[in-house]
Structure formats: structure tokens, C-alpha cells
């Protein structure tokens, strides 16, 4: 099957492309970034999804499926840019797909859609509202993109739409929100809180998308890997040291002393878990994760050892 992947050059995008390539698909990549050593079966195009040449890709290649991975988080882009990329880009993907006869669009979204907070339940199901808009305003454009993609289910019924809400990725590419948070030798925690973190290995991201394409499932699905792990354990198993700070000190220390800079609302995601229930996706597609939590953490640790380890 001919698959177009906007956002292919990101670390996860590449793993997904390689996985789909291995599964026998023909891959067309589109990204503003380059992928210099892209393998032979991947036809790379540089550009913005909202540009005219991007539309031309749809017209000339007539892909059967599109895997939309060209969304960014607050860690990557500032708000104005983010709105343009996440909302404008997603709109372009769906409109071009409809116009040029794409049969299946997979929107790769995030599980942080559900938000974290003291009254938020564990194991969110797909029918829950996006509490992230109130608890973490910096995520609102991603939430909006997710809902916009979901609206294609009724606006574009001739096309199969799959919205995937994926947990954090963790593995040797070191890409993603969680992996970035864990990068330093000392990882800050909020004293008196130790939330569960749910993550999946990059190859399982690829595997799940492959399953979504194969089963051509219509709807909104949570996608996860192994059971979640407490943050303290995650920090230990990746060879880091935890640095529990009282909440007021944590707020002060962010962006200083070599600690990551985070929006104030991100604190709720360090105090409370975002844990999702992915049983519906497993049932619908037969997907099963292959990499267990300890292996994903070990591989991240081996790829990004901390100096103290040496």
C-alpha cells in the first residue's frame, strides 16, 4: 500500500516509516526537516504540509493511506507556530486526503489529551472529554487537532479515519516529551507525589500504526504499551537520580540549575498520572506491544547514559 507520512523526519516518524517499509508498504515522506540517510524504499519530499507542492504530492502519488505525524508540542514550537502547524496542518491533511481519494487517514495524537489532575480517573477511556484544555492550556491546540481529526469521522464518511491517542514514547531515539524530561542526570520530582507514567517503545508505535492500517479501523482509540511505571522507578531504571522538590521550590527551579523549562501547568503532569485504557484498540486490531517496560527503560538508559555512570 502507498502510504504518505507527513512529519516523517521526526525520530518516531522515522521508526514508523521503517516499520511500515518492512511490512511491505511503499512510503512517501513529507517534512520540513531532512532525512539524509532515508532508506531506498522511502521517497522523501521536503516541504510544509500546507504548501502547494504538498498538495501536489497527493495529486501525483495518489496515496492510499496517510499517517499524519506532523504535529508539535510546546517543547518544540512557540504558541503561534504551534497553532499554525497543528491546526492548519491537520486541516490540510484531511482536506487533501478527501480531495485526492485517500482511503484511510491515521491521525497520531497524544494521550495527554485527557489531562492530569487530582480528580482525574486512572485508565481513561476514549469517551472521556479532553480535560487537558483546562489543566494544561499549552496542550489545547493538540486537543483541538485531535477533535478536528475526529470530526472527519462524520464530515468525511467516505474515508476511514483513525484517531490514535498514544502514550509517551521511550526508547533509544530519546525522542519525545518524556524522554526529554528524563535527559539530565537529575530528574526533578514534586515532593510527596510519585505518579504513574505510561510509555511505549518506538517500535511499538510503529507496530500499532501498522495494525491500524491493516485493520483499517474507524474511530478514536487509545494506544499504549506495557503497564505504567511510577516516576521514581522510571528515573531509577533509566540510571538517573530523582530530585524531589517541594512544589514551590520546583516552580522556582524550572529552567534554572540545568533543569528543564516547563510551563506552569506541566506541574499537574508531574504530580498526577495520565493513564489510558487501550483495550478497545487491542480488540479492534489485534495489536500487542512487544517491548516490556524494563527493556524500554534499559534501552533508553543505554542510548543516553549519564556521566555519573561511567
Amino acid at each position, binding site marked *: 500500500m502507498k502510504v504518505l507520512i507527513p512529519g516523517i523526519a521526526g525520530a518516531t516518524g522515522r521508526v514508523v516509516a521503517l516499520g511500515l517499509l518492512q511490512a511491505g508498504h511503499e512510503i512517501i515522506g513529507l517534512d520540513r526537516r531532512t532525512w539524509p540517510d532515508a532508506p531506498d524504499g522511502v521517497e522523501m519530499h521536503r516541504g510544509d504540509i500546507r504548501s502547494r507542492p504538498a498538495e501536489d504530492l497527493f495529486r501525483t502519488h495518489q496515496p492510499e493511506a496517510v499517517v499524519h505525524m506532523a504535529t508539535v508540542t510546546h517543547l518544540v514550537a512557540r504558541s503561534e507556530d504551534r497553532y499554525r502547524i497543528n491546526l492548519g496542518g491537520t486541516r490540510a491533511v484531511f482536506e487533501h486526503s478527501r480531495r485526492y481519494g485517500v482511503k484511510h487517514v491515521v491521525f497520531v495524537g497524544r494521550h495527554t489529551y485527557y489531562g492530569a489532575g*487530582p*480528580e482525574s*480517573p*486512572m*485508565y481513561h477511556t476514549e469517551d472521556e472529554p479532553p480535560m487537558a484544555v483546562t489543566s494544561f492550556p499549552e496542550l489545547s491546540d493538540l486537543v483541538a487537532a485531535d477533535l478536528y481529526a475526529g470530526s472527519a469521522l462524520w464530515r468525511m464518511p467516505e474515508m476511514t479515519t483513525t484517531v490514535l491517542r498514544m502514550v509517551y514514547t521511550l526508547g533509544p531515539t530519546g525522542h519525545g516529551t518524556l524522554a526529554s524530561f528524563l535527559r539530565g542526570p537529575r530528574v526533578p520530582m*514534586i*515532593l*510527596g*507525589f*510519585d*505518579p*504513574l507514567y505510561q510509555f511505549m517503545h518506538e517500535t511499538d508505535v510503529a507496530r500499532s500504526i501498522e495494525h491500524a492500517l491493516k485493520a483499517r479501523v474507524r474511530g478514536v482509540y487509545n494506544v499504549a504499551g*506495557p*503497564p*505504567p*511505571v*511510577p516516576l521514581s*522507578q522510571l528515573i531509577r*531504571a533509566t540510571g538517573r537520580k530523582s530530585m524531589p522538590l*517541594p*512544589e514551590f521550590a520546583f516552580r522556582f527551579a524550572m529552567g534554572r540549575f540545568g533543569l528543564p523549562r516547563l510551563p506552569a501547568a506541566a506541574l499537574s503532569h508531574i*504530580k*498526577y*498520572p495520565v493513564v489510558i*485504557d487501550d483495550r478497545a484498540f487491542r480488540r479492534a486490531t489485534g495489536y500487542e506491544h512487544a517491548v*516490556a*517496560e*524494563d527493556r524500554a527503560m534499559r534501552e533508553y538508559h543505554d542510548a543516553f547514559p549519564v556521566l555519573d555512570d561511567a
Partner: protein
Amino acid sequence: MTAFVSREVLRRIEELEIPWGPFGVDPYGVSKKHLAVGFSMVEPFFRHYFSVKVLGADNVPARGRAMLVGNHSGGIAIDGMMVIASMFFAKNPPRLAQGMVEKFMNRMPFASMLTGKLGQFTGLPEHCIRLLEDERLLMVFPEGARGTAKLYRERYNLVRFGTGFVRLAMRTRAPIIPFAFLGGGAAVPTIHNAVALGKLVGAPYIPVTPYGLPIPLPVKLEVEYGEPMLFHGTGAEADTVIEGYVEQVRTSISQMIEKGRARREKAAEQTLRDYQGGGSAT
């Protein structure tokens, strides 16, 4: 820390039917290590300080979903703690009772973390349904915070029951095991609930006792489990139907309380007689 953990507790933890992950943590974040320390700390209170008497523990199914439903007794959570301890120490094989915690607890540092690691989650219907569908043992106090706020003179009363628990039990087809908890009101003889003081620390109120702090006295406590009750339906029935079922559960609990109260009063009279008898002999 491990020296402090009793061998008995470790053995019982191994007997719990919980799917532990590679780090001794279950899919909800319940931690073996924290349970071991927690139960080891509670054990002397359960066995000696309160010498909790447990009746009818066999009425609780050995495995599979079930909902323990009982009265609040004592201004702080000793009732919940001792019910959990009774399922762990006085039932064979043991079970982990998982309570539904007041929402304010999850906002407090440490309290939030520890309750979670001990399997006590925020009282949300979603948690209730998921745990039951996962064949866990749930502990519910339908009196809610109204119940913990009972004063000493109200200790044998039941306040209004919420109805949500019956709907959830019906929806998940889980049996309700009514239980009566006695003695908590005497252990923490609340004469006043300090609301303003509670606000300062983020709690709804702080119970005040004649001696000031809500430190529980070494009073004998009792918990009696009644026959399981199973209500058939979808849980979407009209309020009037549900209220009838709630009343049945409430009646069962209040009968056990009355029985227990009579038993306790008789025992107290006996003790007094023994004491007086002993006194006259000297």
C-alpha cells in the same frame, strides 16, 4: 526498613491475587513494598491496641469482585484502616480491600502518593467500576464525609446513604457485603468538628476530642460482615427502585450495629460487675 516488616505480612502479601509487574507494582500503582510497610505498621494496632474483633469474614468472597459497604465510625480513617486490616489479617487467603478516598486527599503531598501506593484511590465512579470489573475488593462508605463527621453521641447512628454505590454494584453485577463497624466513635470521641482548622490544612474539618487532638484511644473495635446481597438490574433504574435497595443494605448494617451495640453493652456491664465483684472481695 525491611527489618521492620513482619514475616507474616510478607507471606500474606504473596498470597494476594494481584498481578504484580517487574518492579512489584500493579497496573494501578499499588506497591508491594509500601503494602509491606503499611500493614506492618497497622498490625500492632489491629491486633493489640484496638484488638479488633472480626465476625463473618467468610461472608466476603475469597476471590472476584465484591463491594464492602459499611458505616463510618470514628472521625479519622481508623474504620477504613481496620476494615482493610481485617481483610488482610483475619481472612484466609487475605484480600486487599481498596477504599474510595475523599477527593481532598489526592491534593495533599504524601497523602496522595501513599494512598495510591496502598491501593486507596480517589472516590470516582470510574475507579469503582474499573476495580470491580478487574475482580478487586472495593470498600465503600456510603455515608461519605457526613459519616466521619458524626459526634460521639451520634456514634451508633447512620446518616443519609448515597445511592451511587448500589447503581455501580448493579452495573458491574458485584455482590454487596454489608458490614458494621463498632467502637470507632468511642476511640475518637469527637465533640466538635473544626472546619476552619481543617481548611488550613486542606481537609474538610479536623475532629476535636475532649483531650484536644483526634488521637484514637485504645478502645476495642469490632467489624462484622453480613451475608452478601446481590441486586439484579442494569443500575439505570429509577431512583425509587434504587432507594429501596439502598434501604435494604442500610437496614442490614443498622441491625448488625444494634446487635453489636447490645453485645458491647453486655460485655461492658460484665466487666463492671467483675470489677465490682473483685472490689468487694478485697
